[in-house]
């Protein structure tokens, strides 16, 4: 078990002929992800090292039975690509594209809700179930199969955290990069519940950052619904107010969305927060009684 992706994932890559799309498609395939097809309007009939390319997602679904899509198209076209996937019957969409307008995401959310489709991202590094499937741009060599479920708003910070987990002997069930945008797909609460329900996951790592109040809501959710141990880390403890720290969603506005508030919210419900990245595996091991 694991969450969201596994050996049964059949992946279609939207934007497969672009520079990033083609590069990462081959990386995903090399890792063992079942990449069944790609989509690039006007390039139907071609192939990428044997992966068939179609003009529309509908054809890709009908002919290759894709059930999951990953999107590498330029940000202005991303919302349309997500909706095309949902319309074609894809059940899980992962959008890597960075810089999608927020109002596009609001419209997409409303559309996906009607279709019952799950979205991860946009502006995310993707997700991985080690030894089964990697979807996105994650550097696969740092991951190791195991029992820790991880979710994060950040990319490279996740890599740092995962490599610390792995080097401390803590493998992962599934790691999900939820993205750094203010309006994104699956978020902490949904993923916490999935990890809670996943028999293979024994503990959960949540990596948040400044901006919004999703971490505070996650803390509330953990208090009421999660029985497995959770450890958190919050980036941006020293970020100034009113400055967007790279991610569109990472901004402290009028004193709310600070790391301090988020850390306090977690600690109030008994979720320890690592102050330094290197502390996180130590805390986690204690909670999992591995020491």
């Amino acid at each position, binding site marked *: 078990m694991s969450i969201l992706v596994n050996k049964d994932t059949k992946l279609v890559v939207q934007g497969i002929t672009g520079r*990033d799309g083609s590069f990462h498609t081959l990386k995903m395939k090399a890792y063992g992800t079942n990449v069944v097809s790609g989509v690039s309007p006007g390039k139907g009939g071609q192939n990428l090292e044997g992966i068939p390319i179609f003009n529309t997602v509908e054809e890709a679904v009908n002919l290759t039975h894709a059930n999951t899509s990953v999107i590498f198209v330029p*940000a*202005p076209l991303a919302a349309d690509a997500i909706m095309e996937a949902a319309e074609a019957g894809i059940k899980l969409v992962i959008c890597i594209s960075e*810089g*999608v*307008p*927020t*109002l*596009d*995401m*609001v*419209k997409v*959310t*409303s559309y996906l809700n009607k279709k019952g489709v799950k979205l991860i991202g946009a502006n995310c*590094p993707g997700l991985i179930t080690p030894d089964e499937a990697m979807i996105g*741009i*994650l*550097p696969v060599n740092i991951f190791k199969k195991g029992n820790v479920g991880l979710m*994060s*708003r*950040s*990319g*490279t*910070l*996740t*890599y*740092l955290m995962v*490599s610390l987990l792995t080097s401390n002997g803590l493998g992962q069930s599934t790691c999900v990069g939820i993205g*750094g945008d*203010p*309006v994104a797909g699956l978020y902490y609460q949904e993923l916490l519940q999935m990890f809670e329900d996943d028999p293979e996951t024994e503990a959960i790592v949540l990596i948040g*950052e*400044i901006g*919004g*109040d*999703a971490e505070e*809501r996650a803390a509330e959710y953990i208090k009421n619904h999660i029985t497995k141990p959770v450890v958190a*880390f919050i*980036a*941006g*403890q*020293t*970020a*100034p107010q009113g*400055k*967007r*720290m*790279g*991610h*569109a*969603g*990472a901004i402290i506005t*009028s*004193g*709310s969305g600070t*790391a301090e508030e988020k850390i306090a919210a977690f600690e109030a419900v008994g979720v320890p927060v690592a*102050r*330094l*990245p*290197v502390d996180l595996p130590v805390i986690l091991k204690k909670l999992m009684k591995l020491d």
Partner: protein
Amino acid sequence: MKIHEYQARQLFRQYAIPVPDDVLCYTAGEVEKAARDFNRMVVVKAQVLVGGRGKAGGVKLAKTVDEAVIAANKILGMDIKGFKVEKVLVADAVEINKEFYVGLTIDRNTKSVLFMASTEGGVEIEEVAKENPAAILKIPIDTDLGMTDFQARKIAFKLFSDINLVKQAVEIFKKLYKLFIENDASLVEINPLVITDKNRVMAIDGKMTFDDNALFRQIDIEALNEPDEDEKKEIAAKDKGLTYIRLDGNIGCMVNGAGLAMATMDVIKYFGGNPANFLDIGGSSSPQKVVDAMNLLMSDKHVKVIMINIFGGITRCDDVARGLVTALDQMKVTIPIVIRLSGTNAEEGLRIISDYNLPTVNSLSEAAQEAIRLCNLVN
């Protein structure tokens, strides 16, 4: 992207939302002329991109031309929370009977557009939200349908009892929603929205923020951008694929990824140091990006030590190392550099810089402590 009040008022007019007349002035002389032309009570308002202008003395009523000039002389050149006042708005000071707040924003949790209104206008809405959250009415708007008449009426009846005022407010709310959607705003506020002594509903002040990710399709909005000195540097960096924010410390940071860049700043602070900046060199970093980043860091005179923290994913550590070596050959770098490289092609990266006698460390904590130690040596 934020815009000034005078620009927000122009947008209101463009959408036929009633606003009192005003004139933008850069000198006391211009203010004198404007006040003379109005020939009645005016309000002189500092135009800076920061809240709390009134409290800081940046907004003054003037009954006469002389008072307007005195106010202008006081306000022009004033420093409001680090922002220098370079222009003021001279506006018709309409008689106000009552003040309200209305605004539209994006709610991250419900992932929808949220319409907000309050009878507590004219004060900072964040304070109302903290002290009396029940005083703010909130209605989510379905973007497929837009703001419906009944939703606008529902809010309007909560604010006003007179049907004449309700009708005016409904029109304003619907126009405000249109403005929000058509311009890819992330926040649009009328604060205060007022009833005048002539029973007109008018916007007296406006605050607007727009989605940076949507500026590619909002050329007219982008043209309103008036960046300050720090922001100009940030925009120049952005054109080179770098996200840069100046801070007040002395350890210059170069990191790949926003989350890791924030965590790097945090770790430096944790060990007692002070980061000079947030600098994310982004994903696929070519050697040139690293050269540009080095130039940027060296242009900040406060930087005493440079700390490079790279976790290679898409970013290749050998690319970073090549860029760094090129930068060191091109420019005279006299300050110490601490480097931490791991991930994709880290070994090759470390080999490339091995001839340059630069200290490399294994962990982020070590890198921060070493940077702080070197910084203290310089001081």
